[in-house]
């Protein structure tokens, strides 16, 4: 079975970096990637994470009050 990923979407690239900093500090495996075409035509970046972590990802972002535009499973 291949790895299941999810992505967090943001309004601003700088917000994505802020989220990356918070999630990495919480010990989660995340990576900034270009937003996949099927999700958005935006030229910005999003944050990829292991889908199994998705509730923890949401929790950390809310705790740190990092605003995000959405979470999608890839």
């Amino acid at each position, binding site marked *: 079975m291949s790895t299941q990923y999810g992505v967090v979407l943001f309004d*601003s690239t*700088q917000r994505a*970096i*802020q989220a990356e900093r918070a999630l990495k500090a919480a010990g989660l495996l995340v990576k*900034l990637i270009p937003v996949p075409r099927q999700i958005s035509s935006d030229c*910005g*970046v999003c944050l990829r994470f292991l889908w199994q972590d998705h509730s923890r990802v949401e929790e950390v972002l809310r705790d740190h009050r990092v605003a995000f535009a959405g979470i999608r499973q890839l």
Partner: protein
Amino acid sequence: MDKPLPNIIYLDNAATSWPKPAGVAQAVADFINYLGANPGRSGHRLSTAAAELVYDTRSLLAEMFGAEDPLRVVFCKNVTEALNTVLRGLLRPGDHVVTGSLEHNSVMRPLRALERQGVELTAVPASPAGLFRPSDFERALRPNTRLIVLNHASNVVGTLAPVREVGQIAREHGVWLAVDAAQTAGVYPIHMPADNIDILCFTGHKGLLGPQGTGGFILGERVPDDAIEPLTRGGTGSRSEEEHQPDFLPDRFESGTLNAAGIAGLKAGLEFLRREGIAKVRAHEVALTRRLLDGLRAIAGVQIYGTRDPAYQVAVVSFNIAGMYPSEAALALDEEFGIMCRVGLHCAPAAHRTIGTFPQGTIRFSPGYFNTPAEIDQALEAVEALARRAHTPTYQVVNRERSVYDDRENR
């Protein structure tokens, strides 16, 4: 720190700080050589690394000034662009704005232009020593007052404005306070919430020890994201499908590619300051300023402007030598003594009118963190020599003939 040019005493830190900490030039070079990508445009690792560097710099600035959210730190090319963005983006015909009489032209020129468009303007006078009474700002308020904009420390006499008290008044009357921290950021403690500052405009190349071409503003929690219209619109790397400018921070104000190499240098400057601590920087500059003021006071024929008390000012000292034009003194200080300073009106005619030195201006010495007491002593010896020279009969005769000639030229 090693200085590349021997026999130079740099006392012009109010114009731009020099030298920079060792890591600053290296950080700029490293960015260009090894990172180099466009922050926040593409998703590849060089681009995201550049975006991370920009974010970390915002984070350092937010921490230094007590701002909660690093994304409310907006980068511009300098404090002038930051002030223009805030003033021109916020004030509309019919609004009233209050400022002080020690402002730099980076505030006065945009305000005078806005005045022509129907913005009402009040400039609260400072005393000839460069001090304000906070209650004067309260008296200046009108029902349509939108903003108080205040120079935190005068670039002419160095005196500090009562920002916290004026901010309290602003708060009580539902007005925002914007502060021009060109002369204070990095050398004097600033905490936006505690100092009641709603908008802090800063430059990167003075007290923050970064390269020229860096600066910006920070919006406090009371100012909504969309309160200020952006000065420029364009590509932000976000919402590319939209032909309307995004309304969120910092993208709303940051169209086009940032000066990321400069920001890399600014980051190194901020890291240096975090290691040293603002309190240590301030203490060193107070000691240098005291030494300078005490020394100047002891020289016959020197008039010092401002409070002459380092507790009430930053390391900016204005003075004149009796019988000598400031421009003449500057030339002699540079050519004969290797002392770099700035003379004239310092882009602040209002401030010179306040202290009574318009239009001839003053000689300004502005020491920085890397100056030593020995350098101050050398500078004082040079001023003493010039004061003696200006006092000799020969010099006075030559000078009088020249000024007559100048007057003829001007007719």
